C-alpha cells in the first residue's frame, strides 16, 4: 500500500490521470442512479440548447445528451477496458515467452509481432467488420484486443530480456526453480509498472479505435456509445446547424477519458524513467546555480574595483 501511495507522490500526471479515469468509472457504474432521463427515450424537442432542464441539451431526435453521454460511457469504457485487458494478456504472454524461450520460438513470435505492428490496423478491422456484417460491442472489443497487443508485446519482451540477464534470475535457475516459478515469482513483479502502462496504452487505443469504428458506421446502431453519438452528430450536421452540444459533448467525453489515460501513462513513464520526473527541483537548482554565479561575479567585480583603487593609490598599474 505504501508503494502505491509513493507512486502518486510528486507525480502530477499520474494523480490527475487516475482521478479522471476513476471519475468516469464511477459515473458509468452509477449511471442508472444519476442520469436524469432515459437515454433512449425522446424527452423533448430536437436540438434544444443546454438549459436547466436539459443540462447538456438534446439531440436531433430529442434525447437528453447528458443521460446519453453517461450511458454511452458504459459501453465505451467496457469495450476500452475489455479490449485493453485482452491485448495486455496477449502482450504479456507473447512478450515474456519470447524473451524467456529465446531461439526459434522467439524468432517466430517476433515475426508475428512485427507483422501485426506494421499492418495498418484500422483498414484491416474495417474490412473484417464489413465481411462479418454488423458487429456488436463484444465483437468490437474482441477484434480490437486481437489487433492491439503488438506494441506492448515488443516493449515487454525488451524488458523481460533485460531482467532475464540479471543475476537473480540466473541464481534462481541454478537453484533449480521451475521455469514457471521463475517467470511468475522473479520476473513478473519487476515488470508490473510496464504491464500497467501497457494496459493503459491498449485501453486508450481501444477507446479511440471503437469510436472510429462506430463513427464510420460499423458498430451496432442500437447500442449507444460515444462513437455512435458522434456519428449521429455528423449525420445531423449538428455543428453546422448550430447544435454544437450534440457533437462536442461526446467528443469532450472521449478526449477527457483519453487524456486521463494518457496522463496516467506519462506518470508511469516517470516511474520507469526518473530522469523525466518533475522539473520542480530543476527550477530550484537553476535558481540556486544562477544565484551562486551572480555572487561570484559580484565578488570578482568588487575585488577588481578594490585592486584598481589600491593601484590608483599606489600609482601602480592594476594586474
Amino acid at each position: 500500500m505504501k508503494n502505491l501511495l509513493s507512486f502518486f507522490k510528486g507525480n502530477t500526471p499520474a494523480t490527475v490521470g487516475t482521478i479522471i479515469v476513476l471519475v468516469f468509472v464511477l459515473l458509468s457504474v452509477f449511471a442508472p442512479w444519476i442520469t436524469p432521463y432515459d437515454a433512449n427515450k425522446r424527452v423533448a424537442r430536437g436540438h434544444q440548447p443546454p438549459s436547466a432542464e436539459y443540462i447538456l441539451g438534446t439531440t436531433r431526435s430529442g434525447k437528453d445528451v447528458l443521460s446519453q453521454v453517461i450511458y454511452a460511457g458504459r459501453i465505451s469504457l467496457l469495450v476500452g477496458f475489455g479490449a485493453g485487458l485482452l491485448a495486455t494478456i496477449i502482450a504479456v504472454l507473447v512478450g515474456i515467452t519470447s524473451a524467456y524461450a529465446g531461439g526459434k520460438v522467439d524468432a517466430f513470435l517476433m515475426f508475428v509481432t512485427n507483422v501485426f505492428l506494421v499492418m495498418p490496423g484500422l483498414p484491416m478491422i474495417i474490412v473484417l467488420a464489413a465481411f462479418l456484417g454488423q458487429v456488436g460491442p463484444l465483437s468490437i472489443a474482441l477484434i480490437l484486443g486481437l489487433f492491439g497487443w503488438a506494441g506492448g508485446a515488443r516493449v515487454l519482451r525488451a524488458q523481460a530480456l533485460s531482467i532475464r540477464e540479471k543475476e537473480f534470475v540466473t541464481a534462481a535457475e541454478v537453484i533449480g526453480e521451475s521455469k514457471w516459478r521463475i517467470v511468475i515469482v522473479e520476473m513478473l513483479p519487476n515488470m508490473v509498472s510496464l504491464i500497467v502502462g501497457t494496459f493503459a496504452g491498449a485501453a486508450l487505443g481501444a477507446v479511440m479505435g471503437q469510436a472510429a469504428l462506430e463513427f464510420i458506421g460499423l458498430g451496432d446502431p442500437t447500442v449507444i456509445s460515444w462513437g455512435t453519438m458522434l456519428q449521429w452528430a455528423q449525420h445531423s450536421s449538428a455543428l453546422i446547424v448550430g447544435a454544437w452540444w450534440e457533437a462536442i459533448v461526446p467528443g469532450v467525453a472521449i478526449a477527457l477519458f483519453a487524456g486521463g489515460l494518457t496522463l496516467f501513462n506519462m506518470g508511469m513513464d516517470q516511474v520507469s524513467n526518473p530522469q523525466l520526473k518533475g522539473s520542480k527541483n530543476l527550477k530550484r537548482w537553476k535558481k540556486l546555480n544562477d544565484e551562486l554565479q551572480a555572487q561570484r561575479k559580484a565578488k570578482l567585480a568588487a575585488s577588481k574595483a578594490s585592486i584598481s583603487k589600491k593601484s590608483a593609490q599606489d600609482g601602480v598599474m592594476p594586474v
Partner: protein
Amino acid sequence: MGRFLGSRLLFYIAAFMVAVTFNFVLPRMMPGDPFEIMFAAAQGKIQPEQMAVLKEQFGFVAGPWHVQFWDYVKGIFSGDLGPSLTYYPTPVTEIIAGALPWTVFLAGTSTLICLIIGILLGIFSAYNRGGKFDSIVAPALAFIGAFPQMVSAMLILFGLGVFLNWFPVGYGYNPDIDAGWTLAFFGSVAYHAALPLITMVICGIGGWLFLMRNSMINTLGEDYITMGKAKGLSTRRVMVNYAARNAALPVVTAVAMALSFVVAGALIIELIYNYPGLGNEMLGAVASRDYPLLQGLLLIIVVCVLTANFLADLAYFWLDPRLRK
C-alpha cells in the same frame, strides 16, 4: 548494408503475403454466401454469367484450397484485382489509381510537417526544460492531440471552414478547374488540402513533440554531451550534432510504428472532409458491400504502409553509422 536492408525487404514481402492471405481467407470465413451478397450489392449491374468471372478473381476456382490460393496470388501479382461492384465494370485498379495520389499526398505531407515541426519544437522544449513552452504549450498540444480526430476535424471544419470561411470544406480541388499541370490547378489543390492538412498536423504534433523532447532529455544526460561542452563547442553545435542527432534515432524508429495510425487518421479525415482519397472510397465500399474494391483498397494501403516503413528503415540506416558494419 545490403544484409540489413535485405532482411527488412524480405520481412515486408512476408507481411504483404499475410495481408494477401487475410484477403483470401475472409470471404471463406464469413457467415452466408459472399457472392449472393455481392450480387445484391451490385444492384442488377452484374449478369449471373459474370459472377463466374468474379468467383474466379476471388480464387473460388475448382480444386483444393492451396490451388485456389496460388491462383489468387497469381492474380494479385499480375495486377488483376477484379471489378468494382458499385462502379461496375470499372476495374478496382483504376479506382485505386485515381484515389491513391490524394491519400499519399495527404498522409505524406502531414507526416513530414508533423515530424519536422515536432522535432524542432521537441528540441526547443527539452533545451528550455521547465520553462514556459515546456510546461504550458507542449502539454496543451499533447492534450489537443488526445482529442479524437473526428472531433478536431469537425471543429476545424466548422471553425475555419464554415464560420470563418477561410478554406473550402470538401473535395480535392475545385471541380470547375481542369486537372492538369497548371498553376491554377495546384493552387486549388493546395487550397482544398489546407483544412485536412491543418487537422492532421494539429492532431499529430503533440505526440512527436513529446517523443523528441523525452528522447532529448535522455540524450542530454549522456557523457558525450558533457564532453562536447568540455570541448568548448558552441551550444548550437552540441545541441544539433551531439544531442539532436542521437535523440532523433528513436523518433525515426517511431515513425515506422506510427504510420498505421497516420493511415487510420487519414481515413477519418477523408470521410469528414469528403476528400477523394483511398479512405473515402473504402468507407463508400463498406456501405455498399463492394468486397472486391474493399480488398483491393486494403492491399494498396498495406503496400503504402510497408513502403513507407521501408523508407523509414533507409532513413534510420543513413542516420546511424552503427548499422553499417
